[in-house]
């Protein structure tokens, strides 16, 4: 795959996808923007060849998810989340569906969110997700099932499901 500016091409092609993936892992627009843009900047600094658009997309998504896991793991992030919970101003700007999405994302660990996003939103199969995230297929399958189960329980508790 020949491209003069792979980072720019990747951003134009998969910029929103990267942002959405980061958002689905972190539940914060500001953090998601932070992470997503870093992935493209890193690619800009260290351009590389990709076999296809799909290869490029998989690379971007994997890089985003890895960075999200790093960020979410950090004590800085964990402490800051509690402050954000109290700060309604950021959430107030979001539509209701996104607020609900944020609430859902924050109730799940990052691996579950990543797998649910890749499967439900990007349409990757369990095998593809396993390859992308370097995980066992059974692990991905279990994470997806548990992610869905936990979401279902949250929704039941919230009265959103009968």
């Amino acid at each position, binding site marked *: 795959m020949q491209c003069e500016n792979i980072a720019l091409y990747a*951003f134009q092609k998969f910029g929103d996808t990267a942002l959405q993936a980061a958002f689905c892992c972190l539940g914060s627009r*500001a953090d998601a923007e932070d992470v997503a843009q870093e992935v493209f*900047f890193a690619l800009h600094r260290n351009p590389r060849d990709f076999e296809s658009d799909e290869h490029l997309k998989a690379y971007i998504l994997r890089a985003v998810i890895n960075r999200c896991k790093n960020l979410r793991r950090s004590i800085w992030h964990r402490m800051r989340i509690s402050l954000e919970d109290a700060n309604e101003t950021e959430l107030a700007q979001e539509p209701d*569906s996104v607020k609900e999405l944020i609430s859902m994302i924050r109730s799940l660990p990052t691996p579950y969110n990543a797998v649910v996003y890749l499967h439900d*939103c990007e349409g990757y199969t369990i095998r593809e997700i396993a390859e992308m995230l370097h995980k066992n297929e059974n692990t991905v399958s*279990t994470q997806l099932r548990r992610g869905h189960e936990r979401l279902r329980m949250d929704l039941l508790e919230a009265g959103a499901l009968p």
Partner: protein
Amino acid sequence: MNERDYQNAVRQIQWSEAKRRKIEEILSAAPQSDKSSEDAWKESHVNPRVAVSHSSAKRTEVFEMKQKKSRRILFAGIAAAVLATCGAVAGIAAFSQKKMHTIDVTHKSGTVLHLTDEENVPFFTSVYGFLADDIYNQSYPHSSKNFDCRGMITATDTGWFYRQPRVLDTSNDTYYNKAAACDYVLMYADKETGESVPVCAKPNCKHDGSDSCVASTRVYAPSYMEYHDGYLYTLTTKFLHPEERKHPEMCWEGDSSAAGDIKSEDCRQVLLRYSPDGTEIKELYDFGSGKGVSKCLFHRGYLWCFVQLQKTGEDINHEVTGDAAQFISGGWQLWGYELATGKAVCLYDARPDEKYDQVNNLPRFFTAGGDYLYFCRKLVDWSGSMDSLQRISLLDGQESTALEYPCFRDGVSQKFALWQSKPKNNMIYDGIFDLEASERIKPDENAEEEIETYNGRKIQYGLSGLVDNRFEYQHCYTVDEETKEFVDSMIGVFEIRGDFHKYIKLDNTPQSVPFLMDPNDGFMPSDALSGDMENDTDFMKKNSFLFGVCQDNIYVMNYCDGFMKALKNAADENLFELKYCSYEDLETQDEPEMKLAFSYRLGDL
């Protein structure tokens, strides 16, 4: 929210037009250095939160920028050493001294500390027993290493300081590739060029072990070293009667083969500071005789170190634990040497009391975080032993128990303490303690409990317990079921919470004879060698061992060992190689490789 609602909500997350344009603008420029693109973004970004570097990725990039800057400075210094120009212009003054805020605290004991806001400096986290005699002697007595490298390498921003044996002790043509005691040369390996040079700028110095050579350790046998803020520090043994010294590490009583006739009173523990360009060596502090200095680290403006108080006495075996003591400990102390003033304070003094016996009981593991210094303690009374993770507050000097669990091997990093209450193939820790947050973390419930095969062969997990702030590493290998021959060697990388990340393949080639591994315990069967040295002289093997983690790199050591005759004939082999894999490679490459940092043959100098 059903699946469709979920998808619709996600699709609403998009870049604003303004931010999209700005990012495209930055990406449209030709790829430049880390700094330029990041600064451009910071200057143009409307979200002030982005200006605050808080992602680990950003920290890494900033760190890398610092590396590049200081790499140039340090290499200039080393180059000066090579040219033996004493007045090297790129000396220590080139290293910027950080301006720190300082707070003064006074303990009830009267101890006064001037604490800076400088956090713990990354230092090597070594694998338990690596290259140490103990692990080999327990399981594989034929291959005692005798060149213990723990604490003998320290990473800088631009390379590594290490000590290299100057001559090989060939007086005993046996299994041992033994470096002559005390005869080491302090070396510096530059990461960018791959070159190694002695840390000595004396004109016309041959680095032959003379006392005038800065790099020579004939006068001072380094027992620990750490690079910090532009200087190399060593905690070392200074022999009062150099002609009698035979052992480089400590003065031990009762072991004539190691220490000769040296008594603890005949040597002193001192703190030395080297200029990295090899122009200067300075004795900063003398801890006095009868003390053995152990682990150390830099934190909050101090060099902290444990000091074991030694007493003259006979060897004893503990009735309960069976631990053999080669000297009787008089307890231990925690000392802090203030870098700014040169004053030393004793922060904590642990002496044996009626309840606890502290024979040879120097705390294991040592790390720091915030206002605390952490260490693992093993208290022994006559009913048995008890491990715990202790911490000492810098603010009031009080010791408290952070965790009443045994820490597994070297399972303490700068951020985590790990232990196994239910060992699962030595792989997954079910106990994780976050030192910064002072809270226990649950392992990932969904973590794969066992990775069973690699290239179709069952994986054996060997040494473990090496952790950094994100990953835990295992030395893994596969064995051919039929021939029992060692086949693959790799590092298994696991996330702290247990998820498998990836493998790093190691270059680990059996030499001359196959490296036979017992699949049950991972060590060579005792009958693998005949024990007849004449017939076994061809035996030699090349091993890789997971060595350490420091400053975003993971290190392995390659070495050859075996019989002297085989080692001497192995002219084409490097007997000692340090390889590393950067975090960036670990993240971005599917099959990351270990790169050579430096190598040498024993006796090269």
